């Protein structure tokens, strides 16, 4: 070739992510792919297909279930794992609560941060030396400094001041027994890149990402979904006295714990409309929708130091 045509940004990001997944497979003895059924981890599943087919994935999938998930997402998670023919491990925060390793202050508090405990228990149970996750550096300022292969000590702690230098595309995933690596293949993707990739690859998503009618109340200035049915049949997020229930057209930009993930008002009912909406929005992905990041300026950083991905 005489003149080089550089890859488009999506092709470049895809090639980088495949390279990272293959480095995990090549360097780690017992990795696992964290899979929640959310849009970022669905992108990673497609990347893993491109990286490893026609072979099987060289790692199982694992979900740390808070028990506070939208049923649509859980169904979608199971369906996708079955279609791929890959092994899905589910470990639940509620089991950690039964064991007494997770103690709630109030029964309906958000359980996102408690996932760290269950995750660390699962890492120990299976002896995983690497967890692949869908975190992106554009999501949050603590993540902007995270390595693509991020070292965690025996307690799962991230030490932001003492990270392994990461140069070129030479990743170092070496660990001693008990330590592990968190690998982030889509570190360099933005929310927009994710949606463009979903559109290009025609990926299916859980229905709650698209505009739908939902009962909500306004709470602390955010849209708060109410009376959400859990897998157990229990209705969670009861409205408080005096709150007015409104039926509104909304969609979720991120999916997570029902008690702390807020939807946005939207009529985007397909991926191309979401791409346009993402291009014109004035609020960051976590800004309006993740109530647990707003506790303090440093809440994500704090959770990550404690073993969160």
């Amino acid at each position: 070739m005489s003149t080089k045509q550089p890859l488009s940004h999506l092709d470049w990001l895809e090639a980088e992510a495949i390279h990272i997944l293959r480095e995990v497979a090549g360097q780690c003895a017992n990795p696992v792919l964290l899979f929640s059924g959310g849009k970022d981890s669905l992108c990673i599943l497609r990347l893993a297909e491109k990286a490893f087919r026609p072979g099987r994935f060289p790692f199982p999938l694992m979900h740390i279930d808070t028990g506070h998930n939208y049923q649509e997402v859980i169904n979608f998670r199971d369906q996708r794992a079955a279609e791929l023919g890959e092994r899905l491990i589910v470990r639940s925060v509620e089991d950690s609560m039964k064991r007494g390793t997770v103690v709630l202050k109030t029964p309906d508090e958000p359980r996102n941060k408690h996932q760290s405990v269950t995750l660390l228990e699962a890492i120990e149970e299976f002896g995983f030396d690497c967890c692949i996750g869908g975190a992106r550096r554009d999501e949050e300022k603590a993540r902007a400094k995270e390595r693509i292969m991020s070292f965690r000590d025996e307690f799962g702690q991230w030490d932001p001041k003492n990270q392994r230098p990461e140069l070129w595309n030479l990743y170092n995933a070496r660990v001693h027994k008990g330590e592990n690596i968190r690998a982030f293949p889509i570190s360099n993707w933005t929310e927009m890149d994710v949606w463009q990739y979903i559109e290009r690859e025609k990926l299916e998503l859980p229905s709650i990402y698209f505009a739908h009618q939902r009962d909500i109340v306004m709470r602390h200035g955010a849209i708060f979904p109410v009376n959400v049915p859990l897998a157990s049949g229990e209705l969670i997020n009861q409205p408080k006295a005096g709150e007015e229930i409104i039926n509104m057209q909304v969609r979720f930009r991120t999916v997570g714990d029902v008690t702390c993930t807020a939807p946005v008002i939207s009529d985007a009912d397909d991926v191309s409309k979401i791409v346009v909406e993402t291009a014109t929005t004035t609020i960051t992905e976590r800004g309006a929708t993740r109530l647990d990041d707003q506790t303090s300026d440093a809440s994500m950083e704090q959770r990550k130091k404690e073993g969160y991905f």
Partner: protein
Amino acid sequence: MTTQHNDSLLRFMTCGSVDDGKSTLIGRLLYDTKTILADTLNNIARTSQKRGMEAVDLSLLTDGLQAEREQGITIDVAYRYFSTGTRKYIIADAPGHEQYTRNMVTAASTANLAIILIDARKGVLTQTRRHSYLAHLVGIPHIVVAVNKMDLVDYDQATYEKIKADYIAFATEIGLAQARDIKFIPMSALNGDMLVDRLDNMDWYQGETLLDILEAAPAAHSEQAEAFRFPVQFVCRPHDSANPELHDFRGFMGRVESGSIAVGDAVTVLPNGYQSKVKAIQVGNEQLQTAQTEQSITLLLEDEIDTSRGDMIVKTSEAPEAVKQIEAHVCWLSETPLSPARTYIVRHTTRESKAKIGSIQYKVDVNTLEQQATADLKMNDIARVSFKLAQPLMVDSYDKNRATGAFIVIDESSNNTVGAGMIV
């Protein structure tokens, strides 16, 4: 912002100290390209107010960790993203203070362009020399010298021209001017002059704005034709598959680090030297006829060859050297000094070898660029070092090929990455 998919991608870095206005520059780029969303802007407006500032301080956009906010410093390389609709950008934001060498080398290793900031009031300083030397050492092909804070020298053209002449003289002295593409631009990051908008304070400057330069810079690391280099990351043998067609499938998975490959090309697998031809190129289940630099692919060969991770597939006509001794410029990254008596691990492409230090010829004072004799290396030292290797590595010189000329040094006991090397 548009939503098109075929944007190219440019990775660049910014070099400068706290006072050069680096954070303001990045904040301004993000702000003027409409990357900053309302809630983030509200947050920094609140923080600016809390800190008693009158205007919104855009440099707060690059504020990172709690520890950094407490100490008012930047600890580590941070990565930022913005898009203009024609191009996606990844900025590596390297702090300029202590640990500067380690952080700068890290940021430079993936950058194709460096913006070197100079304070118009101060001109070319020691740190400018340091940043320029490191950008040169790590092989960044495009350099933009941004003479910032022009508002504080009354947008004076003579001041700018003097700094430009000084810089050219210095860059010629270290070989940078001859080897790299250097551009100069006067600006005020604080006011936004010559970043995204020209404004009207410097009519004497008719050159490109910073964003014009970024939009036009070549995205590829090298404009020259490079040899095909394909380090094998992983071998796919799905023999447990129910599909009998796959029983003999043997796919070599990796990323094309340089050059290109087509179905039918004659290839050699190193270090063993087996020869074969490319039977197929795949990404997942999709078949390709050719593949080029930076694509992650699966290669199938005509012959059954025993190949594993760490081997390298090359075109038979352009094979690299397999060597058991290397000479390199090394940047030491660890608080534990290099000990010449110890054995380290060198990771080069997907291959590892134990390595012993042959000798340390000299280290470079990054401020004066003088060469000095030394017995060991401390964090942030740059030195010329020779290594003896237990396993052969397939190398090119770093100047010729960034991917096969680079390696990292790993401490076997801590597993830490302790050094970065560029093969001479």
